């Protein structure tokens, strides 16, 4: 079990209605299902197209077991330039 600090950006922040929240979860997959449950279908729709950074590194395995305190950044599609 890890303590996951979820940070929302841009459209994900707008959909979540908060800048960040903290949840307890064993995996990123579990964390996502919890925050989507908490925040509803608006966030779910955005998260589907987001990339995720776990402590700054792109998440590839949603099922890797987490421990301690980690930071999960939810990044919507970029739109620079």
């Amino acid at each position, binding site marked *: 079990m890890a303590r996951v600090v979820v940070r929302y*950006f*841009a*459209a*994900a922040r*707008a959909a979540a209605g908060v800048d960040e929240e903290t949840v307890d979860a064993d995996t990123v997959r579990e964390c996502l299902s919890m925050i989507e449950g908490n925040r509803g279908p608006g966030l779910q*729709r*955005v998260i*589907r*197209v987001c990339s995720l*950074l776990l402590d*700054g590194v792109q998440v590839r395995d949603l099922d890797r077991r987490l421990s301690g305190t980690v930071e999960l*950044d939810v*990044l*919507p*599609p*970029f*739109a*620079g*330039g």
Partner: protein
Amino acid sequence: MSAQPVLHAELVDYEINLLEIVGRVSSSESGAIATFTGLVRELDHGRRVTELEYVAHDSATRVIGEVAHDIAAKHSEVMALAIVHRTGTLRIGDVAVVVAASAAHRAAALGACAEAVEAVKTLLPVWKRQVFDDGTDEWVNSP
């Protein structure tokens, strides 16, 4: 080109000055300078934009530096490459991004500039919120 290229990559929260950036990539050996300027347009898909906000992730400063480094490394004839992206609130006509590349000859300057523009669009963790004249807003590229 054996000398190290001059690289300048940053996010700024103030007005971007094209000439200043051209100055950064100029030298007595640069025979070609290519630039790209991205500006805030008044209309987006027919809707009137009144204001635009760019928000960057914490990693954007690192990423913009990596983009500049990688493009210059790929185009070994590039003498200098600058990439500057604006953050914060912008108005119509404001400059959102400037890329400038110099080289002895045109191909490297034009190629590096075009590729850097593409890389900024796809790799830079920056988001854009458009505010329309009917008061609504949207995060571009997001559902």
